[in-house]
């Protein structure tokens, strides 16, 4: 029996229903995961943040110091190697301190120009790799304090991705 083949010219309706189902599922998933407030904090590269139960979000954009296995980075500029920080005896990391003091002065000048109080404590977020020794963390944190950044916060990853 000759096989009956469909003519090329025949108008076959294109069904979008299955595509719509897929799109609806993706849309619902996206809306569930959407963060309408945006991200004030983004994770730096080359480090793994510790997981914490904290759900506290930063109140504003702050200066960020990153301590990974290789470098101490202030505002995306590599300042000193983490190895050097670990080797030094002194609590104050001088290179980081001078950069932070410059930044702090800029912030104070900006506040004065805007008519805001200049003597308020500076805010800083420190992103530290979870395997970094306490010694390095402590020196960097103390240096932030010496430079006038006394409101210190550590960046962490929310437990279970922030899900309840």
């Amino acid at each position, binding site marked *: 029996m000759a096989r009956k083949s469909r003519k090329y010219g025949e108008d076959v309706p294109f069904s979008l229903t299955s595509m*719509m189902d897929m799109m609806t599922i*993706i*849309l619902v998933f996206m809306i569930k995961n959407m963060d309408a407030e945006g991200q004030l904090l983004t994770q730096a590269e080359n480090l*793994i943040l*510790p*997981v*914490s139960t904290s759900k506290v979000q930063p109140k504003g954009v702050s200066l960020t110091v990153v301590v990974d296995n290789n470098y101490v980075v202030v505002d995306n500029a590599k300042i000193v190697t983490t190895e050097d920080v670990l080797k030094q005896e002194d609590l104050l990391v001088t290179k980081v301190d001078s950069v932070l003091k410059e930044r702090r002065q800029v912030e104070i000048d900006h506040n004065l120009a805007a008519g805001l109080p200049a003597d308020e404590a500076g805010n800083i977020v420190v992103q530290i790799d979870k*395997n970094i020794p306490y010694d390095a963390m402590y020196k960097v944190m103390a240096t932030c304090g010496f430079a006038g950044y006394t409101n210190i916060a550590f960046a962490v990853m929310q437990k279970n991705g922030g899900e309840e």
Partner: protein
Amino acid sequence: MAKELKKPAKPEEPDLLPAMGLFTILIPMLLSMTSFSKLAIVEVNLPERSMMNMDNDTPPEPDQQALNLSLAITSDYLVIGARGGFQPNVYFKEMWTFRCKSDSKLITYSPEEVKATVEAGHGPKCQDGKEMDKEKYIYEIENIELWALEKTSEEDPGRVRWSLYTSQGENVPDSVFVDGNNEFFAMTGEGPGGLKQPAGLKKPSAGAAVATLTPNSARKLKPEDAAKSIVYPLSAYDIIAKDLIAIHAQFIDLDDVDNIIIVANDDTQFDKVIQLMDRAKAAEFAKINLAKLGG
């Protein structure tokens, strides 16, 4: 005249093209706003020693009425101190749980095992037999666990204590169960070092009266929760969390009841400090200071 019945018209499929266009715009927009791992912050007070160094004054006389609570972590134990005294040491065995890239499964080793493997020129092995990168295995550590040890003396290497936990799956512990007297369902493990799960410690059955360290969490266990519970080595963090909650409740009238100083030695990993800070916050210690051991 007979009424002429109208044949039902063939249902027309709605025009979905405009909706598709809308979806095509919405999905990339939402994709750009989606965050798959959420970041947060943990606020901390400045180091005690740096503050003392700044003004070169002699430290003030200790207040006899104050609690002066501190929590110290060394490489072997955790200890809570207050008013010049210390609670018994909570000894632990540190364990690293890796999530392998090759099979996405969890595997736990002690740091000594990992170091011996790396020194032999290999990376730690995954469950599928593949080796992790011996240079970058540290990035595959998912959890640094502190398994509580039962010790009879300082020289005793100790045996692992086991307890009952809730779990979200993958045999990963979540919250520890306690009984009506706020005691852990804990037993010492069997075999060398107590690394084998004790036969006498069974998963709780449905209907069992349990609680977690969260206030007002006493309940009868539902069948689905009973099925999810696991027997797992008791975490030293949980022992400390229970003690901190009890201390905060006991000394609630003191002025410095919300203060705690976490003291660590130089080589303590940052992750452990954050875990202790989490436990202190959960026990309602709002003001956390950090200090160095011997500093």
